[in-house]
């Protein structure tokens, strides 16, 4: 029998712990495929964050580290400096990267650290049960913004790609989404490009993946994608913010 | 034998360096030494002081409570440290900046206008070397030759002119000590 689809080599056979309808699995797969395609499986290592993807260190079929909340870019910095012969990525959610880990991501990007960062933005804290994230949309209800996010009280969502794009050092910054098959194909290209640039030692690469959280949003998986398209994408516009390889500055 | 020394003055007068050169020379003569500076905001132009201990034995505490010798380049240093000089100890003071002096008569005082003399030698920067000269001239704590050797190795290639002035200042200081009553 001909096998036409299989698990990428860069993923272990440990079953994912994600909720039904969650897109972390898709994001993991895109990264793993890109690692396979670049032939990096024996030289790649990654850092898992705190959040729903806290167990990512079990899922990637390579040496992996698990970091304290928000600190993955610092941990990855230490790893890359200690093992320059290896290629390092971090996998982080919005609470991890854009709240508690703001300093770490900004400074890793500003140093042009030779790592790839995959940032999954679903506008909410998933693992702790649906609290407000720095990327939670205005008026969006969460367990810690039960009356909706009030921008005059807690400000507006943070657009991380735009923020990092003000820095000189980053080599590649792109926002994509995982909200439809077509978008996933675009996302794959972005992820592959980041891994390829990483392999070539070009510099700091960053891909934001706009995603969903059906469980904590309380919307079924299909509808949650539509909700995200309608509500998140207008605020978090997909696009390439920086690609020094293609002359996009 | 243990000699405990405090050097004090305004930041920029080079008091830390006095202690450092004494400690380094002491080390080269095979003695145990320690050098403990005051640190922090004081180094930015306020008063600075350094405790230096030179000893034949292992140095227990590097903190000097009762100095055998105080080098005071300004009046605040005298006010702060002179009362704790051990009876029979030595006070070397710079009369240019110590208008009130020190009233104790149970210690040996060597007073000289060190700033004026430094200018006379040719560079106000040699003030601290002048003080070192007085110090070693009076106490015999360090041999002049050790100081000369150390300074030469440190400065000969970098600034031979200043080296000459420094050595002259040390010698002049030794003379001041010898001629003091």
């Amino acid at each position, binding site marked *: 029998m001909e096998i036409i689809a299989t698990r990428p080599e860069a993923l*272990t056979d440990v079953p994912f712990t994600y909720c039904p309808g969650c897109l972390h699995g898709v994001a993991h797969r895109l990264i793993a495929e890109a690692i396979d395609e670049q032939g990096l*499986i*024996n*030289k790649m*290592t990654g*850092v898992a964050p705190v959040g729903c993807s*806290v*167990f990512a*260190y*079990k899922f990637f*079929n*390579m*040496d*992996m*580290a*698990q*970091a*304290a909340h928000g*600190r993955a870019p*610092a*941990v*990855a*910095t*230490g*790893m*890359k*400096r*200690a*093992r320059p*012969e*290896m290629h390092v990525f971090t996998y982080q959610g919005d609470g991890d990267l854009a709240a508690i880990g703001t*300093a*770490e991501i*900004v*400074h890793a990007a500003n140093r042009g650290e030779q790592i790839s960062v995959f940032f999954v933005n679903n506008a909410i804290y998933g693992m702790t049960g649906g609290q407000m994230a720095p990327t939670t949309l205005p008026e969006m209800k969460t367990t810690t913004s039960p009356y909706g996010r009030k921008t005059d009280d807690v400000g507006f969502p943070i657009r991380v790609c735009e923020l990092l794009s003000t820095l000189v050092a980053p080599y590649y910054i792109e926002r994509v989404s995982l909200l439809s098959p077509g978008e996933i194909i675009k996302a794959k290209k972005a992820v592959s490009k980041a891994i390829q640039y990483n392999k070539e030692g070009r510099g700091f690469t960053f891909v934001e993946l706009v995603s969903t959280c059906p469980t904590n949003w309380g919307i079924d998986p299909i509808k949650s994608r539509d909700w995200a398209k309608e509500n998140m994408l207008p605020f978090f516009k997909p696009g390439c913010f920086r690609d020094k390889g293609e002359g996009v500055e | 034998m243990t000699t405990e020394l405090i050097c004090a003055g305004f930041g920029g007068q080079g008091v830390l360096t006095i202690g*450092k050169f004494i*400690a*380094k020379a002491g*080390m080269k003569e095979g003695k*145990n*030494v*320690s*050098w*403990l*500076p005051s*640190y*922090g905001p004081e180094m930015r132009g306020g008063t600075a002081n350094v405790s230096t201990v030179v000893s034949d034995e292992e*140095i*227990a*505490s*590097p*903190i000097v*409570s*009762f100095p055998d010798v105080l080098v005071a380049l300004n009046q605040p240093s005298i006010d702060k440290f002179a009362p704790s000089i051990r009876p029979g100890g030595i006070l070397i003071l710079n009369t240019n900046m110590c208008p009130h002096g020190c009233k104790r008569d149970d210690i040996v005082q060597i007073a000289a206008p060190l700033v004026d003399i430094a200018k006379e030698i040719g560079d106000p920067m040699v003030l601290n070397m002048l003080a070192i000269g007085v110090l070693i001239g009076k106490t015999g704590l360090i041999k002049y030759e050790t100081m000369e050797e150390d300074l030469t190795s440190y400065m000969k290639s970098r600034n031979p002119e200043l080296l000459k002035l420094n050595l002259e200042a040390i010698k002049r200081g030794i003379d001041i000590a010898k001629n003091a009553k």
Partner: protein
Amino acid sequence: MAKILMKGNEAVAEAAIRSGCRLYFAYPITPQSELIEYMARMMPKVNGTFLQAESEVAAINMVYGAAGCGKRVMTSSSSPGVSLKMEGVSYIAGAQLPCVIINVQRGGPGLGDIQPAQGDYFQATKGGGHGDYRLIVMAPSSVQEFADMASEAFDLADKYRNPVMILADGMLGQMMEPVEFKTARTDEEIADMWLQHKSWCIQPNEDGDKKHHHEINSLEIDPLVLEQHVNKLYEKYAEIEKNEISYEKFNVSDDNEILCVAWGTASRVVKSAINEIKVSGKSVGLIRPINVWPFPYEELKKAIGPKVKKVYVFELNTGQMLDDVKIAVAGKVPVDFWGKVGGVVFTPAEILEKLELALKE
């Protein structure tokens, strides 16, 4: 090798480099700035990594990453900065990573001041970060010892896969004393050092089909598994307590009327006072724990001579090691304490006065 007159902060940095430390991450803070500056100057000369992190938090997490790769890595700070590092220290202990952390203590709590103090004893020896873990904590009392401890600390860290803290203070950091360095490890030796960590650390996969999957991790979500992990850590700590007791006896004899206990900078001042007391024909001894964790409980108890009226603890805090001394003495004789705080260092004269009073009691 000839002796060099050097500040403690610089001597420990030089010694760390000589013992094979090739990665250093830190953030500036007084009174340890000479250490970070020395590393900034010297690391590039040995093809090492010096990186000034954006925060203490980032620095300790960089250490976590580098230590996870099996390389000799160090960070340093002073009290307030060490507090910030404590999150990472807990993770490093949980993940069993070897590294060296230097605390050049200053006065606290809070921003405190920048003068020498010993207020971080509890933090260093009793936790500091969250969870059940221990650091090996070494407390130098001279610049030479500070430097020597750098290589010992790395060896212990490697041996036990455990973070080691050198608990110094502003005086030891700022003071210059003559120091003699050990021969520097060669590049080949340093390159081979990580091999002892090959079985667990992050590295490229060179085993072909027998691909390894090493996890640098402190998370065990299953309570039964975490229980096993913490128990395993505690077996390791028991082993360290058995093997790594280190202390100095100064003037300890059966004639002692008082037995002092002091560590680090404080112990030097106490030694001066004991030397003065000798002149008057009275006998006072000193036990100086060199490693403050593990603490020499048994050894301290045994050092209490038949004539000892009192065990006298002197610290630059309000009585932190005092608790350990009380555990050690276990009511055998009274335990007294005197300390100075706020970055004020007691003088030999002050200790002498306390001892003379106690001898008259």
